[in-house]
């Protein structure tokens, strides 16, 4: 129960919160700014390694990248957490109920990105959407966008490849979510949804949303940072270690033959290999970066990454409860094809 606070108290709380956030941001920026020189000094100065040597270059890469990525990740997860605090699955359901395809697909994909989503919620969410009259294809646009365009992947891509690649990943991911969802909708596959789904009667949403104020939102975002970074950092460290080893030891152009631009078959193979694999983005991206450095085509490895993240076995297993296998096959096929096309596009353009 929120008691009405005297105006002065209320202002003070808000100001304190703003001050804390500003201070945290300031510290973050300082640390980030000095990361490269300091880690360079440690690797090459303190440890006396030769930057041109295999070991030196691998260690330098590792020491610099681990804190850099962790810092970026913390920042973005925090900001996305604040953004996500404004969205709930219930709101998405209301926004999408009864929307026709086309517009609905676009809206669903965008909502999929900003609505908090965990793959175990896929089924209740699916059921809720169906019950609200959200078209099947629109629901799929949501379910494709949500896991694929996750902030961890985007941050890591930004950290390793820069703005343009991260933005391109987001844009094409969004496009795939919209188009694949639309295609699935057009195919009129409602009969391949498990029968019991249409018999579910969802209870009245009696759960009242907490009124959220800014300090709640910040708490939520901080908790998200703890959860996500806490869960993901071992994968990042391991991935960067592998990346560092590849960076330091594998000769240039080694991958060009297998995964380079001229190996046209590498894109479909990468996607097919990626589909049954499941990893969070954190583990994959550093490896991806090192492969690219050694001559693998960026499009191929990004397609691989998308296939791994967007089409995950655990989610498929969960969805199997509500979808007949034929629909799952169509889902995998349509999204897989979309990813392949994106792979070719990236190879041609980047």
């Amino acid at each position, binding site marked *: 129960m929120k008691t009405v606070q005297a105006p002065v108290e209320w202002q003070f709380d808000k100001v304190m919160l703003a001050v804390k956030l500003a201070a945290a941001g300031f510290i973050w920026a300082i640390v980030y700014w000095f990361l490269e020189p300091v880690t360079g000094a440690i690797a090459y100065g303190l440890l006396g390694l030769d930057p041109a040597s295999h070991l030196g270059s691998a260690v330098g890469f590792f020491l610099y990248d681990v804190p850099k990525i962790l810092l970026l990740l913390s920042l973005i997860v925090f900001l996305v957490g604040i953004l996500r605090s404004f969205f709930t699955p219930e709101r998405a359901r209301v926004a999408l109920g009864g929307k026709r395809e086309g517009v609905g697909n676009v809206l669903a994909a965008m909502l999929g990105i900003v609505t908090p989503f965990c793959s175990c919620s896929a089924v*209740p969410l699916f059921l809720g959407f169906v019950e609200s009259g959200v078209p099947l294809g629109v629901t799929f646009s949501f379910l494709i966008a949500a896991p694929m365009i996750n902030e961890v992947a985007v941050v890591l891509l930004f950290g390793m490849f820069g703005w343009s690649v991260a933005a391109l990943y987001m844009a094409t991911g969004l496009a795939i979510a919209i188009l694949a969802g639309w295609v699935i909708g057009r195919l009129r596959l409602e009969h391949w949804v498990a029968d019991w789904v249409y018999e579910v009667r969802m209870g009245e949403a009696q759960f009242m949303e907490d009124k959220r104020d800014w300090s709640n939102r910040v708490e939520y975002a901080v908790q998200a940072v703890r959860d996500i970074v806490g869960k993901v950092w071992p994968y990042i460290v391991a991935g960067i270690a592998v990346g560092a080893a590849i960076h330091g030891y594998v000769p240039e152009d080694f991958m060009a033959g297998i995964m380079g631009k001229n190996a046209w078959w590498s894109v479909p193979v990468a996607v097919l290999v990626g589909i049954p694999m499941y990893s969070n983005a954190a583990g994959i991206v550093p490896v991806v970066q090192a492969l690219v450095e050694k001559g693998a085509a960026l499009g191929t490895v990004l397609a691989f990454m998308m296939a791994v993240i967007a089409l995950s076995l655990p989610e498929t297993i969960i969805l199997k409860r509500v979808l007949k296998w034929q629909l799952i096959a169509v889902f995998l096929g349509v999204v897989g094809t979309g990813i392949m096309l994106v792979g070719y596009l990236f190879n041609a353009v980047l």
Partner: protein
Amino acid sequence: MNIKILGSGCANCNRLEALVREVVGELGIPAEIEKVTDYKEIMRYGIMATPGLVIDGSVKSAGRIPDKAAVVQWVISAQAAQ
């Protein structure tokens, strides 16, 4: 008191169950704790994200693991209401 945890087998749902058992144990309140994994049942409570927490038929939280203090508060209130 009847406490239901709605969700099917993901890590968060198990954590919520553990948290609830811990709170109930610490408070020493007799409560029946059930795990609901059937989706038709879960949907009857009108939530769209698991894990969900239901105390004496009323939904207290959905889609997240509430902090322990909140769970304590709800259990105590539910006890008082009996």
